[in-house]
Each structure stands twice: as structure tokens, then as C-alpha cells.
């Protein structure tokens, strides 16, 4: 496979890191983006096992003027950009709409929605320059329908699925395919923190909260981050070449769409 670069946001997170490892194994060079400095360490660790180059870039992607380090890293690698993995996301503070702090609403929308528009605006031109490629957003099963106490998160992820479809329609002629992966529960920090918060709210133990939630999943477990990465790799590769505007639900059967 010839040299090619993927930009991955949220690369210091549970899913992002698994995607980085998978893509490195598949021979990609990577720009790993996160607000957390630890992304440089992730880049160093992933690099060790890769044929391509892996470079970290610290950026808060909610502001256009913050994206320069990503572009610099891309230039430093000097290979064609063929993939944009929009993985970064935040969970909201759990709570009812009636008392939802609008700063919290804005924070969630900025990361889960606005940042992805900014990333598309900035990195579609280099994708076009390299003759096209693929974009995958990471939405959520919470974007497939609304859930009480998660209004901002659900709306942001539903919006992201819609954004994915609009981008697919606009970019098909440029040979850029745009799809989404909607995970169910994934065994990452985000999921375990959400379980802990819910357990505290209900005054039950973490283990019993976990059992309550996992019993709702036909496959009776959360996904390994690598299983989300597998679907993203499929969409990025030749086997996914006829897919655009699609959302793949990797959720253990917790929701049928």
C-alpha cells in the first residue's frame, strides 16, 4: 500500500487510540490530534509498531485558529491525506433540559458538532488534492434516538449523523466518501465514567449499574474499542468503496435502527 496519511481526532481517548493502533498496523501514517498533551506519548507508542510515520498534534479543535498544528504535522509527514477520522467527542453532564446550563449545551455542541464542521472545512482541500479519500465520523446510538437527561449529547450526535449525510452528498463528486460509525457502549473511560455517575445518582454500586446496563445489550457486553476501530477501518478501506452517507451501528444489538 502506498504512503498515505490519516488524521484522527480524539486520538488520546479510548476509541481514538484503538483506531490509531489499527491504522498504524494497516500501514497508514497518522496525525494524532487531541487537546490532551498525552497524545504525543500515544504517538510515540503507536509509532514503535508502525511502518508509517506517526505525529502528535495538540489542538482544541473547536476553534478554526487552533487547527494549524494539525496542518503543520500533515506537512511534516509530506504524504497525501486520504482519511479523516472525526472521533473526538464529549459526554454532557447528566441532567434535565429544564435546568440545562446553556454553557454546557454549547460545550457539547462545540466539540461534537462544530469542531467536525471546522475539520471538514480545513481538510477537505488536501483530501481533494490527493484525489479523494474517506471521512468517518463517530456518532453514537444516543444519536439514533433521544434519551432522558442526555438531551445535549443526543442532539449533538443526531446532528452529527445528519452532517455526515450532507457532507456525503456534497463531496461524492470529489471522490470523498463520508460515513459514520454509531457505537453502542464501548469499554472506555467515557463509558465507565457515565456508569459511575449513573450509579452515584441512583445510590447503587458500580457493578450493579454495569449489570443493569449490559443486560440491555443482546450480546451482554460493551464493545472493545478495537471493535469500533474495525468498522472505521472497513469504511476507510477498499471493501467500503461503495458506501457513502451510511451509518454503521456497532452496538451489540442494544438498538435496532
Amino acid at each position, binding site marked *: 500500500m502506498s504512503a498515505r496519511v490519516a488524521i484522527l481526532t480524539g486520538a488520546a481517548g479510548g476509541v481514538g487510540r484503538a483506531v490509531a493502533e489499527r491504522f498504524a498496523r494497516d500501514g497508514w501514517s497518522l496525525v494524532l490530534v487531541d487537546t490532551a498533551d498525552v497524545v504525543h506519548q500515544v504517538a510515540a507508542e503507536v509509532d514503535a509498531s508502525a511502518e508509517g510515520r506517526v505525529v502528535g498534534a495538540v489542538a482544541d479543535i473547536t476553534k478554526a485558529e487552533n487547527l494549524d498544528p494539525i496542518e503543520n504535522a500533515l506537512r511534516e509527514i509530506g504524504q497525501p491525506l486520504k482519511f479523516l477520522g472525526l472521533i473526538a467527542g464529549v459526554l454532557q453532564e447528566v441532567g434535565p433540559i429544564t435546568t440545562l446550563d446553556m454553557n454546557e449545551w454549547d460545550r457539547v455542541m462545540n466539540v461534537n458538532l462544530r469542531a467536525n464542521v471546522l475539520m471538514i472545512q480545513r481538510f477537505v482541500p488536501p483530501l481533494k488534492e490527493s484525489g479523494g479519500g474517506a471521512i468517518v465520523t463517530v456518532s453514537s446510538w444516543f444519536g439514533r434516538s433521544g434519551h432522558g437527561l442526555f438531551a445535549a449529547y443526543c442532539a449533538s450526535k443526531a446532528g452529527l449523523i445528519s452532517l455526515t*449525510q450532507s457532507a*456525503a*452528498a456534497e463531496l*461524492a*463528486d470529489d471522490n470523498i*466518501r463520508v460515513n459514520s460509525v454509531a457505537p*453502542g457502549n464501548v469499554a472506555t473511560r467515557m463509558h465507565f465514567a457515565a456508569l459511575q455517575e449513573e450509579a452515584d445518582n441512583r445510590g447503587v454500586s458500580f457493578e450493579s449499574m454495569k449489570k443493569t446496563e449490559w443486560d440491555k445489550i*443482546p*450480546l*451482554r457486553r460493551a*464493545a*472493545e474499542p478495537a*471493535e469500533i476501530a*474495525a*468498522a472505521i*477501518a*472497513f469504511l476507510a478501506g*477498499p*471493501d*467500503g*468503496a*461503495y*458506501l*457513502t*452517507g*451510511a*451509518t*454503521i*451501528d*456497532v*452496538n*451489540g*444489538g442494544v438498538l*435496532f*435502527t
Partner: protein
Amino acid sequence: MSAKTKGGAVVTGAARGIGRQIAEGLVADGYGVVIADLDPTTGEATARALTEAGATEAIFVKVDVTDRATIKAAIEACRLRFGSLNVMINNAGFNKPEPFLEITEKTWRAILEVNSLGVLVGIQEAGKAMIADGIKGKIINTASIAGRTGFPDFAAYSVSKAAVISLTQAAARALAPKGITVNAFAPGVVATPLWEQLDKDLYAMGASAAPGEAMSSLASQILLGRVADPKDVVGTVKFLWSEQSDYMTGQVLVIDGGMVLQ
């Protein structure tokens, strides 16, 4: 055939079209494959061609998916020849367009019998064989974008494919405790003999102005700008039969080049 296989697969409606392409992909991936089809002439020829080209073997078994005994026989042949049934692809199906107000009971029953009942029986018999052998298998059903939205001239077909989606979901719940996953893929417009016939039927009905028009007018509604070749859907089905999709069950993967955006 002494080549080691990853196990066995049964593909219904695999004599030609999408099913044949899937069977070819399974052979290339190291599965022994049973071509389960109504049409022995084409089916035998397909089995021979795939065996010659591939590392493993394809055998033909005559099956009418509406006849449980024949599906059972195909699955038995798969277990005997390849050791187990690991992948079941319920793909046989057909369409016969009729204007909505003129749909006959005969057409309705014929389409639902093959496209829906045939899938139920295929899932049931595959599930029983997998459970008996302790196989955490993959069952994959061919739905359609017509199962997601109704088309006026294909009402019975749309219903039959919506039923495939419901069966996929019910079976996913029923078989998850056994470690068996059940998913579907929903093609858009694929250039196969099915569509050639459909195009002729639509022209004869007066639903299109010229031969070939029904199909080509649909191409303009596809973001990727062309109808699919059967090869275009195989990558998606392969993802579903591979361990890469182990955390997916009860899902429908729309593989339509960007038509319905769901």
C-alpha cells in the same frame, strides 16, 4: 478437495447475481461453500467455476427456500463436506412489479413465500445446526432499500424485504444467547439478471418510457453516480461474515452508493 477451510458456508440464490459474487468472496476467503439454488444448470456451472478459481471448494445443492427439507439438506451437505456451518447467507429472492391497485394475491403470496418465509426457514435451520455444533456462527440476510421505504410498483417486494429486516432483528435477539449474530445488508440498485427482468417488466407495464430507462434514471439518484456491480456489495458482506463485525447483531447495513441516507 484436501484444502483446509475456515469452515462451511451456505449461500441461497447463489447460482448467479449477488449470491454468486458472495459465494466467490467466501471461497476466496477460505470457506467451503454450498451454492443453494433452484436452478441446477446455472448452479452447477457456478460451483464448478468457483472451485476451479478458488483455493477451496464450492458444491451445488438444489434448494427451494420455501421447502424446509431442501434447506435442511443443503445445510447437512455443508456439515458433511466442510465439517460445520459457520456462515449462512439467506439471499434468494425475486421481484415482480405490479401497479399498486393491481397487485394480485398470487404475486403477493409468491413474493412473500420466497423472500420472507424462505429467510425465516433459512435462519431457523442454520440456527439449529450452529447450536448443535456449538458454532458461534454468522447469519446474514439480503434485505433491500425497498425494505426501508415503500415503492409504488413493488409493494409486495417492499413488504417482503421489511419482513427480512424484522426477522433479522427478532432472530438477533433469539440467537444472541448462543453467540450467533444475525445481520442484514440492504443493497440499492445492483446490475444483475433480477434488474434486467425488472427493467423489462417496468417497460412492459408502461412505468418507463424506454428499455434500460428505469435503471439508468435511478443511477442519477445515487451519490456515487452509478448503480452497483454485484462486486460492490461483497466487501460489506465480507465485513459482516468476518470477526471484524463480532459486536454487531440485528443491524442492517445499507450498501447503496448513497441513495436513501439512513
